[in-house]
């Protein structure tokens, strides 16, 4: 480009594939040496948080230190909470795509890679909410708070290693049910084990 060209160009912001700098950026931000190149995962992480920014679930599919995770969580929560209601569900953050959706008082937030399909990620989020809803019966934030470990168990029957493992709602719920039955001891009233 000749000198004196404006910063904007007609081919601006063509997304760069294969630029997997995410943990490097996080690590550098946390003041450490960048980790060794990490393999891709379709979904990098999923966070659930309230409108006050309190974390309700964090599922990480990439290896990061606690410090890095906290930093990312803090920044991303801030960014998402700052979005106005009428804005779209997608935003670009560092070199990741963020897909988020609010259900009642909870934000469901996923980080996906550049080549991933944002629209199907919305479906993934929605399917997870449906599963929670079916399991808890009209799920609300309190259910997730008081039964956080259940939320994890359900997620782990739907996604594995950041990928969708089961597309049948019925099969996921059946698996959870069977696992619950194996737990000792059982609390009759809820039919879910209580620790």
């Amino acid at each position: 480009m000749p000198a004196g060209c404006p910063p904007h160009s007609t081919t601006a912001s063509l997304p760069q594939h294969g630029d997997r700098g995410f943990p490097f950026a996080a690590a550098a931000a946390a003041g450490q040496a960048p980790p060794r190149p990490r393999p891709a995962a379709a979904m990098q992480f999923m966070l659930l948080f309230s409108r006050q920014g309190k974390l309700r679930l964090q599922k990480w599919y990439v290896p990061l230190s606690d410090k890095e995770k906290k930093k990312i969580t803090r920044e991303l929560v801030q960014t998402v909470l700052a979005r106005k209601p009428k804005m779209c569900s997608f935003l670009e953050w560092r070199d990741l795509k963020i897909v988020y959706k609010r259900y009642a008082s909870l934000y469901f937030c996923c980080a996906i890679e550049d080549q991933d399909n944002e629209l199907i990620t919305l479906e993934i989020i929605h399917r997870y909410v449906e599963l929670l809803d079916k399991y808890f019966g009209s799920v609300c934030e309190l259910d997730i708070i008081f039964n956080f470990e259940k939320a994890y168990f359900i997620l782990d029957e739907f996604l594995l290693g950041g990928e969708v493992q089961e597309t049948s709602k019925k099969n996921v719920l059946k698996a959870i049910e069977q696992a619950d039955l194996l737990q000792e001891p059982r609390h009759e009233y809820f039919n879910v084990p209580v620790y």
Partner: protein
Amino acid sequence: MVVPSLKLQDLIEEIRGAKTQAQEREVIQKECAHIRASFRDGDPVHRHRQLAKLLYVHMLGYPAHFGQMECLKLIASSRFTDKRVGYLGAMLLLDERHDAHLLITNSIKNDLSQGIQPVQGLALCTLSTMGSAEMCRDLAPEVEKLLLQPSPYVRKKAILTAVHMIRKVPELSSVFLPPCAQLLHERHHGILLGTITLITELCERSPAALRHFRKVVPQLVHILRTLVTMGYSTEHSISGVSDPFLQVQILRLLRILGRNHEESSETMNDLLAQVATNTDTSRNAGNAVLFETVLTIMDIRSAAGLRVLAVNILGRFLLNSDRNIRYVALTSLLRLVQSDHSAVQRHRPTVVECLRETDASLSRRALELSLALVNSSNVRAMMQELQAFLESCPPDLRADCASGILLAAERFAPTKRWHIDTILHVLTTAGTHVRDDAVANLTQLIGGAQELHAYSVRRLYNALAEDISQQPLVQVAAWCIGEYGDLLLAGNCEEIEPLQVDEEEVLALLEKVLQSHMSLPATRGYALTALMKLSTRLCGDNNRIRQVVSIYGSCLDVELQQRAVEYDTLFRKYDHMRAAILEKMPLVERDGPQADEEAKESKEAAQLSEAAPVPTEPQASQLLDLLDLLDGASGDVQHPPHLDPSPGGALVHLLDLPCVPPPPAPIPDLKVFEREGVQLNLSFIRPPENPALLLITITATNFSEGDVTHFICQAAVPKAPLRLKLRLTYDHFHQSVQEIFEVNNLPVESWQ
């Protein structure tokens, strides 16, 4: 006495009951102390409960590392409840950075080979979430075995665990590639989905695998076709679309296999067309599949008609009421605008509509796409839209929009007048956001359009009269008024309404700019110089101008002060030369983006005239004399430059020597004069970015004990052949020295 430990939900209640952060901390610290004690005591019965509580406070941000070993113990336990919490703890608290993580390898191995299905599930899940490379290598054989297990519950998890293992240890591809062919025949959606994900991962990592799996393209096409044509299934359909997750994954794999491969692309062509036309688009699920289809069509070697279909689908997406869909459409179209320009052009009106989006991330993309779609036939209409956008767009888009408009205007301007109008409009609307060279570009443009001088100066005068805060606009306007003030006052431009401006108004306006606290130092420089130029353009008695100039002679700003002092001197001592010095600048030829270079050169060249250690005085007429001395001096005598910040000044011509690109060797310095300790040296540089240019620096040094005063050095250079005529006058050892000489022995490298 043993105090029974809190149940998890009771602890959560207590924490939530805390009114302050400090109170919460207290509750948690107390409980963590109990938990630690419990761990130390090794209580197996409540261990799972203690860890669950610890995991809860960990999520709130409190340290939980002392629970790591407990995870190991729980995983090793035979109770399912223990394993469930233990594995969860391992996924939350352990990762490959901790050496402890390796310790669960053995437990996982046992659970994988001997556990009941739910236990195998837990182990596979943990392995695929936090398994390090070492763990993956160790456990690959176990996972491989599970791929062939009858239970789909375990198999689907084993397949995705294999995906993770390959990501961590690419060499394991050889282990997990062979089973794929058979797995692809499964009918269980979970297994099929996992298998396709696995094949995708293998193909992305190895060109050999990619070639190998091309042969399954027909099978994939068949699977997808079955999915698309089969009826509604309660189990897998979402909004009338059969298993969109599986469809999307298949389409992704087809994309990878069809890329750059004619034959595979052809095999999938019809199916892609079918999916593209038959998918229900009323809900997001269908649009997700459609979107993936479009991405695949555009990435493989698809038929031209199919590509157009894909772009049209994106065009339709732009009209969708769901802004998420509009977002992906804009992003995709931006990726395609270079390769499929004419197809995208067809949707230009819709794209332009998207400029009005309230969501900034959409309007940003619409802006980029709009700018990419500007061409010579639509430039007028597009610029209108973009300028309207500029007026109302969010502040963080202003700079990009302004620079985009200016760039497009430069490339596609139908007429010079339109171009000037466009730049003017941008400067008035978003003056603070334009790039630094906008001023230079506009003055160049105006200077070069002689027929538009009158028009330009009037428009700029009007704009300036309304608003003196936008610095780039003020600078250009001041420059213009200075140059073409006479045209402004003549009042007879047909293109705008007749404007009667009198001299006092013009001077008042420039003074206002000069005095305004909003004006940058550079702007004030422009204004002062403009006032000075007007002294020759206007008919009045110049008293007002002289007054201003003399006041600014004591201005605190050094640059401004210097200017004012010199102008003042021009009035007082060299009034007879004033007209010549302040004449209109000659039209400069411009090579487009060289404008920056020329601005730089003229600044560097301006240093040449100040090589003497004593502040220079205007040297106009003597220079003219010198040029007369040179034989062959052309009739096109260049007027010496005024100290004017405008780029493209006449000085450029003095050094515009005809040269071809030089050899890279530096040109040696040349001593051209020596007398009683006063020495003159020439050094030569060719700037690498502009090898046709030769910069000559004259350095005068006094080695003697006596002072040199009133030193004046003047240089004249004819266009060809290269020689230098120098004239020196100075006082040294109480004598007046005057020397005129020619330098003929310039180094060979300097002139070829």
